[in-house]
């Protein structure tokens, strides 16, 4: 059947299943679907009630401003984080009750771990990392925007399309059940004839292409758009990690795009890349997928390392220790990350000599990370340390990430890997690196740079509550999984028969409740901060006594970033000006500023891609073709656009900047003792305790 609506009809919704077969299993699915629908309706109602459609369209959806695009990435990340955490909690609750059964069906549980993994990697960690890079990098290197502001919008549109399709899959039909890596032949059409793997493919492909385009954009921006004097060895470390992550995105994204499309060819056109019969080679899928999959985790964690570098230096008021070694370690990781992918399938059946080559490479990659941890600790040593929210996260990271890293070195040994392969030990390991490593860093980074984008700080007390809940919740949830894995419990089990697993499963289940509270505290922190934005405002722009260029401008940062492009003379450019002179001097002359004009291209591509992905999933061929043609036409029409920038007159910049400078000169700075008080308006006074 393939008419106007392809394979679609009412029976594919979870509501129909809940009516046909009432029970916990179907109610959970219908409840989740109901939440998505209610959330969407509530959002539409909110926008209409407060008449926000106009501002949303003008200021956000059509904006090509890198900061706005970065914020939208982060919003996608936080929304998807809420869903991913909820799914994780449901899974932990299920497994806590899964002795000889459990409330959910095996298929439903499989759907949960597949969406959870796909979401957390591709639609939480990646958007948060890319969002933060978008916001911060142009500010740190003294650029007005990304090298390609409109392509930046297109990247966002493609990522959003993937996320949208994942949300749709909750309401219409079922998602894939073969895990986030979607290994064939199980996900081929013989074993999974339904729409599930197609949903996965058409979420992953646009997101992969979008990330690749982001990588190009970041790389060109950092290579070509730095302010005069900003040499490579003067770049802030976050920018360095962003550069390495960007280059990795360029090379690591093609494999996942290719392997997903090959899987699609198998499923739609009867190709035999990964099938059981007629010359298919399913092992090649694992091979190609992990050529993306392993570099991807370093793409996520390198910018996280960048955040830690900025946070440790700023909140201990010291120069980053061992800057050159941090740069070299970053580059080393970026290269070695491409040589370790086989450790994800040590047990596939290749010979020991192949395994050990990749095992050794995996152990080697731990070395530069170790170097970094020592550098950050040395940065803190004898510093003027303030235990702000990012520092709480950093402390949690230090202790927990080292444990996660060490279990990684253990897993790098093929003989040990054979014992714990596909057990909860592995689940504990990668959550142990990704949560303290990436998620903590992103939450810390959001807390750190939030004032720069929105003009007010986040609430410290609520932020600390959230941070502690995340740290404790992580420990209670995931550390028991190491033990369960060593006891032999396989990952992805919807039920188990050994009662010895129950006590630790209950502990992990309790931990999931703490993580839910942590998520709630994080959201409350954002809400409370918005309500108290008056007292938390930091209009002068430097709330943390920052060291790098982004703190040398008002908060929120103006659309054009820098009134005049700064000339950089030192590594910690702003710090050098603060200690060696006056950072708030009016420039001799202002110049006209060219800014990208708003365009709807990204939005058009987002809508067309979502439509095409949905249509391909449900075999609605007319819509799929329209979507794809729409994307092509949008790009071609765009080629004929001539008025792509607008000019901001120098006089306007002078007025805006002059007013700020005047306010700065009449204001009194605060010392670090008053950092967390309403007196902190974002102007730092020299701190007596800081040793020169």
């Amino acid at each position: 059947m393939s008419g106007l609506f392809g394979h679609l009809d009412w029976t594919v919704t979870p509501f129909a299943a809940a009516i046909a077969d009432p029970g916990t299993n179907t109610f959970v699915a219908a409840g989740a679907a109901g939440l998505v629908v209610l959330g969407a309706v509530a959002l539409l109602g909110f926008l209409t009630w407060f008449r926000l459609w106009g501002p949303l369209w003008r200021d956000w959806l059509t904006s090509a401003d890198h900061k706005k695009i970065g914020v939208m990435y982060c919003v996608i990340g936080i929304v998807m984080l809420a869903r991913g955490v909820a799914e994780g909690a449901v899974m932990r609750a299920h497994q806590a009750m899964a002795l000889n059964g459990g409330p959910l069906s095996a298929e439903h549980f499989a759907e949960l771990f597949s969406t959870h993994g796909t979401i957390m990697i591709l639609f939480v960690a990646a958007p948060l990392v890319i969002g933060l890079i978008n916001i911060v990098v142009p500010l740190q290197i003294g650029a007005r925007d990304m090298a390609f502001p409109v392509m930046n919008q297109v990247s966002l549109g493609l990522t959003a399309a993937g996320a949208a399709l994942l949300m749709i899959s909750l309401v219409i039909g079922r998602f894939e059940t073969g895990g986030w890596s979607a290994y064939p032949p199980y996900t081929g059409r013989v074993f999974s004839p339904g729409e599930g793997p197609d949903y996965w493919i058409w979420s992953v492909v646009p997101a992969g292409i979008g990330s690749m385009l982001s990588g190009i954009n970041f790389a060109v921006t950092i290579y070509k758009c730095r302010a005069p004097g900003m040499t490579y060895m003067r770049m802030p470390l976050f920018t360095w990690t962003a550069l390495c992550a960007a280059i990795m995105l360029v090379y690591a994204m093609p494999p996942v795009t290719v392997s997903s499309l090959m899987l699609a060819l198998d499923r739609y056109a009867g190709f035999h890349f990964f099938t059981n019969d007629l010359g298919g080679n399913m092992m090649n899928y694992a091979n190609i997928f992990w050529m993306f999959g392993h570099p991807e985790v370093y793409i996520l964690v390198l910018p996280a390392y960048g955040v830690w570098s900025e946070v440790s230096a700023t909140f201990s008021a010291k120069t980053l220790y061992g800057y050159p070694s941090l740069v070299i370690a970053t580059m080393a990781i970026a290269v070695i990350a491409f040589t370790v992918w086989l450790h994800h399938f040590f047990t596939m059946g290749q010979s020991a000599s192949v395994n050990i080559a990749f095992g050794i490479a995996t152990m080697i990659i731990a070395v530069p990370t170790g170097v970094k941890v020592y550098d950050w600790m040395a940065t803190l040593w004898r510093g003027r340390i303030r235990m702000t929210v990012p520092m709480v996260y950093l402390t949690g990271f230090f202790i927990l990430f080292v444990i996660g890293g060490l279990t990684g070195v253990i897993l790098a040994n093929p003989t040990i890997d054979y014992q714990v392969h596909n057990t909860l030990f592995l689940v504990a390991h990668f959550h142990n690196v990704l949560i303290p490593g990436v998620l903590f860093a992103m939450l810390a980074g959001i807390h750190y740079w939030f004032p720069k984008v929105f003009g007010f700080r986040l609430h410290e007390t609520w932020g600390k509550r959230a941070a502690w809940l995340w740290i404790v919740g992580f420990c209670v949830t995931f550390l028991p999984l190491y033990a369960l894995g060593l006891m032999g419990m396989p990952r992805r089990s919807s039920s188990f028969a050994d009662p010895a697993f129950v006590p630790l499963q209950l502990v992990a289940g309790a931990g999931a409740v703490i993580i839910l509270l942590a998520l709630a505290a994080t959201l409350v922190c954002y809400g409370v901060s918005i309500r108290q934005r008056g007292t938390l405002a930091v209009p002068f722009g430097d709330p943390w006594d920052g060291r790098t260029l982004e703190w040398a401008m008002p908060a929120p940062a103006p659309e054009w970033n820098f009134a005049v492009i700064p000339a950089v003379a030192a590594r910690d450019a702003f710090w050098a000006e603060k200690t060696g002179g006056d950072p708030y001097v009016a420039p001799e002359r202002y110049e006209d500023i060219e800014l990208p004009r708003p365009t709807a291209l990204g939005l058009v591509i987002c809508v067309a891609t979502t439509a095409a992905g949905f249509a391909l999933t449900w075999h609605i061929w007319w819509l799929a073709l329209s979507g794809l043609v729409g994307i092509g036409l949008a790009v071609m029409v765009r080629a004929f656009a001539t008025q792509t920038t607008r000019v901001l007159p120098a006089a306007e910049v002078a007025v805006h900047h002059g007013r700020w400078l005047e306010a700065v000169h009449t204001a009194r700075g605060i010392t670090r003792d008053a950092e967390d008080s309403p007196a902190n308006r974002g102007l730092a006074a020299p701190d007596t305790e800081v040793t020169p």
Partner: protein
Amino acid sequence: MTANLHPGLNLGESHGAAHPASENRVFGFWVFLMSDLITFGILFATYAASGTPMGLAGGPGPAQLFDLTSVALQTAFLLASSLTCGMASLSMKAHAGAGRIALWLLVTALLGGGFLMLELSDFASMLAQGAGPARSGWLSGFFALVGLHGLHITAGLLWIGVLLGLLAVQGLSDRVKTRLLLFALYWHFLDLVWIGIFSIVFLRGLA
């Protein structure tokens, strides 16, 4: 002689602001091509790894399916189109006018179209022999790799259409000049990939 700002033909100083203005875009596009190179590289490796008895799955192999004459003709068409594409860039650099550039682009499109017709007729004759992509893993790899190159050529032909439209509507503006540079890079890159295809797929298969 001044240093090149970017890969491919550089406009040079006689083009004023258009020369430095091209730097970021051409560099960015070159980064994209490097990413595309990895895409092709994976398909090359997949194809090469499937040339085993298991991958052939008892189906027809290179000796039964490949036509050396047709591949030689395709290669000739593509190499000639690479040269005419270069001539289009050169006309632009030499300020020879939009008409001359359009003419060279048209010749490039005709040669590219000829290449595509020959490739499609080869595909059709393979399908007629029952050697479609669904016959074996090796044929899946073949059609994905060679087909992806063909898709790139098709996209290139559409791009030429857009460029001709731009030349007609906007003339030789700085933005159009940059787009012409990008296209030339793309087209030469496709010829590079084709060297890999005719060497690794066709000649190695028939040797």
